[in-house]
């Protein structure tokens, strides 16, 4: 898809007028922008393109032993499904070629990920109905993040174990991270060990520090109230 630049600018300005509530825009004297490299398709407001792959984590990278690694799906204190590393690898693999957007402002285009969809995990565990309207992903190292269940179903999310054809590096969340590319990347929990379904929404790690409960980059939902 190739959207002409004028359309791209136009959508940005429309977005802005809708979100600033008529307050005066402060122009930055002598700032004209240096939009390099030019996006091949629009990126969300306030984002810039990044060639590298920056890392955002609040603590040391956890040490994960694949021999004892497993991940679970839980609801109401019960384990509905559990997979070790080999069992996860044996499930159908799904590839996603998408752009990713971090709340710290960088976006990266045309990234490739492989993993198992939550739909396939459900099928493997014999789960026919989502066990709750919301889900808390939890990780080694104590990280958590909350999402609406519908945002991880219908092929919208992966339990990912490969990036760009290689195992995901530990710093980027390997061996296994949740991958939900249509939301800011903090929702794609690194080092994921399980999904705990719940009836009511509840804040995860960054959300408890004032980050947005949903985190749609196209609506620039960075922080609570955005």
């Amino acid at each position, binding site marked *: 898809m190739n959207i002409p630049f004028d359309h791209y600018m136009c959508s940005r300005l429309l977005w*802005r007028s809708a979100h600033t509530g008529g307050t005066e825009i*402060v122009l*930055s004297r002598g*700032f004209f922008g*240096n939009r390099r490299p030019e996006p091949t398709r629009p990126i969300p407001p306030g984002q810039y393109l990044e060639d590298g792959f920056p890392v955002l984590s609040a603590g040391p990278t956890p*040490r994960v032993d694949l021999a004892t690694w497993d991940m679970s799906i839980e609801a109401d204190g019960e384990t509905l499904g559990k997979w070790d590393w080999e069992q996860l690898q044996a499930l159908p693999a799904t590839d996603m070629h998408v752009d990713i957007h971090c709340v710290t402002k960088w976006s990266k285009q045309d990234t490739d990920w492989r993993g198992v969809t939550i739909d396939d995990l459900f099928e493997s565990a014999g789960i026919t109905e989502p066990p709750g309207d919301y889900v808390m992903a939890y990780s080694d190292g104590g990280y958590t993040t909350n999402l609406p269940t519908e945002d991880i179903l219908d092929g919208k999310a992966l339990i990912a174990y490969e990036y760009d054809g290689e195992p995901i590096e530990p710093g980027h969340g390997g061996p296994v991270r949740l991958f939900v590319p249509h939301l800011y990347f903090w929702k794609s929990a690194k080092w994921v060990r399980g999904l705990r379904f719940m009836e009511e929404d509840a804040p995860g790690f960054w959300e408890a520090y004032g980050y947005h409960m949903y985190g749609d980059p196209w609506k620039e939902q960075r*922080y*609570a109230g955005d």
Partner: protein
Amino acid sequence: MVEWQVATVKRVLVETPRVKSFGLDVPDFGRFRAGQHVDIRLTAPDGYQAQRSYSIASAPEGADELQITVELIEDGEVSPYFHDVVREGDQFELRGPIGGPFTWTVNQGGPLLLVGGGSGVVPLMSMLRRRAAREGEPVEAALLYSSRSLDEVIYRDELERMAGEDQRFDLSLTLTREQPPGWSGGARRVDMQMLDGVIDRLGEPGMSYVCGPTGFVESVASLLVDRGLAPETIRTERFGPTGT
């Protein structure tokens, strides 16, 4: 709700050849904790906007201005603007404070271990300034600061003055690329031996804060875990692009 506000530049400080600090007047900036950051937003005449995050360098209390410190990234978009264009009286949009786990308050106690690489020292400086401003005896603290050369050490005068006046603050500099003649400090990347030396003088840290480029933070945090520090007492903040 973190609202955009207008910041006015009160003064520009040249810290090093590649680093400047900006003292800002932000009338309604709320209370913040040392270690937090702000988002800034620049707007071009055609409506194009760019946003970036910068750590707060000033202390939460006792400072009459909000200060950010910006390192020049040559092929960057926002830092060259700050370095080449911004002068006293300029205005831009800012919102904050933002950030949670990478913060320190005086009641968290000590000993406090700070390990910074390059401009990763900025949020650590906010913590040290906060600590220095407290009444009564400050907690034991150590800063291990890795820089490429002495010229690139940010806040050097202030850090050395702090270390000279405060028996409970231990400053260790290590210069990884270039050392001046007669240099007695570290002359290599942060390693276990260096951390051992700092922690031996400091005592087992109650909290550790590590900030710098991704590779630096990965390496230092991993060494601290190897040394037996509890992972939940180690807070990290990584910045900048990586090669991967």
